[in-house]
């Protein structure tokens, strides 16, 4: 493993891959900073930029965009009380209060440091955990994979949004939309209605651009962006007292983010909420929270980045995306002819270890980008909405068209933009739909292959211990959510 990692570093430190990581982190931070463009849509829109790169370079750049965006959202949370992406919602509470008290620099500084620590610790853990987990997953057969994916979807349905029924409905809709196109087992077209564009199914990336990009812009067009605090950014480093308060918060946030990142389907908001609440409960002065407590920024930001890196573990080892953004990354892997999952570590160790090494490098780049350049990022918040909106829409159109050089994908994106706008207004969660759409073909294939193995006998799912355990866990998650056993903090308000 160490040998693989060293080789990975040797490759990731070549000028080209370093440049991809730097460009990815910069673009990702830009996406996070700009209101109206979340990490899922931002990563999807930028996929065409990687078309000319080799698969390793493309994945390095897109991964860097992903965790760059996860950090960038903090800047808007602190300065204008508008989260650049969903996971930064909780940072608004104390981060914006700190900015109002003239401590914006400190808030952004501790967020950058906390994100760095969270990201590095989670990546070290990824190096230790991923190879044995991938080896274990090699023993999985189709029934286990079916049960595992079902478990992931049940977690998403059980925890996303305020209504479990609505989340389940969205999961089923995503799965059903994934059925459009060629049947993965028999090769016959389904729901294509003799429309050639539908034979390949609905373009996943175009759907994500619509659901998360266009709909976000439509929502932003309705409401004006809040006032930007003219923050003093000279003092980025916390005082000695603030350091004392932050160290424990960063470590606890990292632990919470990492642990929850391992669970497929938990979503990015939950770890940040958990970390914030844990700090408030542990604090001897909880009344400071909501009024500019530095722990209220340090803990969720560490949890956010630890989660982002830990979520790569189920993705790389099992092929299960934990969030819509990871699902977009999965789409990018597939476009580049790479299938995430246990075989990845066996078949493409060069790629996977170079990408993992690039996570370490990306975290260092992010720290270097964000501490000294935070003032520059803050200036972007003054970009007038019409120009921002026109720029984002241009990128959406060219991004959707570039996927297959097809106007059909542009129409799909627009349609799902409007659908996403309506669904968001009605509090119908989008994350289950997206995960259902990306996992649909694999879950169907594993279920049908399992039933073919057993000649149609359903007992195959109940006679294999691991499969049975996962199915029981999936049922328990749904039952728990139905009976409101899941703590309210675990329920994501909106994704």
């Amino acid at each position, binding site marked *: 493993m160490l040998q693989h990692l060293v080789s990975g570093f040797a490759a990731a430190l070549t000028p080209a891959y370093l440049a991809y990581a730097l460009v990815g982190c910069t673009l990702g931070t830009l996406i996070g900073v700009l209101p109206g463009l979340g990490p899922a849509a931002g990563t999807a829109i930028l996929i*065409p*930029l990687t*078309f*000319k790169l080799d698969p390793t370079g493309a994945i390095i750049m897109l991964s860097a965009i992903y965790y760059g965006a996860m950090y960038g959202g903090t800047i808007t949370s602190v300065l204008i009380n508008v989260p650049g992406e969903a996971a930064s919602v909780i940072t608004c509470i104390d981060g914006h209060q700190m900015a109002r008290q003239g401590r914006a620099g400190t808030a952004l500084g501790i967020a950058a440091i906390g994100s760095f620590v969270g990201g590095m610790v989670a990546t070290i853990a990824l190096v230790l955990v991923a190879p044995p987990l991938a080896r274990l997953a090699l023993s999985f057969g189709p029934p286990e994979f079916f049960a595992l994916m079902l478990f992931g979807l049940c977690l998403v349905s059980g925890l996303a*949004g*305020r*209504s479990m*029924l*609505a989340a*389940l*409905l969205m999961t*089923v*809709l995503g*799965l*059903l939309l994934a*059925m459009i196109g060629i049947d993965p*087992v028999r090769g*016959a077209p*389904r*729901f294509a209605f003799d429309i050639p564009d539908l034979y390949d199914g609905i373009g996943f990336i175009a759907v994500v651009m619509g659901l998360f990009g*266009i709909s976000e*812009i*439509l929502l932003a*067009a*309705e*409401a004006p962006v809040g006032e930007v605090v003219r923050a003093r950014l000279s003092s980025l480093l916390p005082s000695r007292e603030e350091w004392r308060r932050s160290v424990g918060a960063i470590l606890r946030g990292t632990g919470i983010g990492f642990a929850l990142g391992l669970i497929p389907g938990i979503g990015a908001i939950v770890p940040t909420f958990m970390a914030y609440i844990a700090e408030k409960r542990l604090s001897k002065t909880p009344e400071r929270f909501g009024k500019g407590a530095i722990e209220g920024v340090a803990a969720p930001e560490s949890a956010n980045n630890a989660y982002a890196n830990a979520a790569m573990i189920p993705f790389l080892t099992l092929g299960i995306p934990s969030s819509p953004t990871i699902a977009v990354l999965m789409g990018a892997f597939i476009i580049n002819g790479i299938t995430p999952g246990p075989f990845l570590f066996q078949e493409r160790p060069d790629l996977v270890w170079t990408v993992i090494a690039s996570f370490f490098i990306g975290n260092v780049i992010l720290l270097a980008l964000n501490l000294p350049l935070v003032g520059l990022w803050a200036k972007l918040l003054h970009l*007038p*909405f*019409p*120009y921002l*909106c*026109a*720029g984002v*829409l*241009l*990128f959406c*159109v*060219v991004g959707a*068209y*570039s996927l297959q*050089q097809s*106007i059909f994908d*542009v*129409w799909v994106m*627009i349609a799902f*933009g*409007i659908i996403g706008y*309506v669904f968001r*207004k*009605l*509090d*119908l969660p989008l994350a289950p739909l997206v995960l259902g759409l990306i996992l649909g073909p694999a879950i*169907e294939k594993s*279920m*049908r292959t399992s*039933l*073919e193995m057993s*000649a*149609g006998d359903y007992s195959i799912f109940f006679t294999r211990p691991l499969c049975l355990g996962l199915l029981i866990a999936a049922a328990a998650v749904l039952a728990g959510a139905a009976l409101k056993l899941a703590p309210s903090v675990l329920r994501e308000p*909106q994704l």
Partner: protein
Amino acid sequence: MILPNRRAELVVLACLCALFGFMTVTAFGYSLRDALGPGAGFFPFWLGTLGMVLSLALFVQSWRGRAIGEGTQALLPRGEGARRVAALVAGLVVVSLLLQPLGFRLAMLVFTAGLLLALGVRRPVLIAIFALASSFGLFHVFYYWLQVPLPIGVLGI
């Protein structure tokens, strides 16, 4: 309490139920089982059925006055917000229609300039510079650097 988007919620759920119903019926036309086990229609048939049950359950719940979420946000925007949303959607539809006949550069030039005007920008020079730079600049990046064959229109642009 009648929530502002309750009617919209009922309409959307009814549409979803109809969609699931349509897909269930269509899936029934594919084979549910064949010699090797579950057929092409098996998975979509059961998913469609489950979708119908779920959307009906939510419909009944909403009909009885319990919204899916907080239900405090009106579905359709009003005033200035409505005008901006309509301009964005109309702009996207128009640019999709013009993309192939006019070509990427001209279609995007028209789209960007029109959008900026619709969103209230009243500085013609800035609009022209931004529209030209973004449409022709983006074309250059994608067509020449990334070698993505973007559409070229009847005017050869």
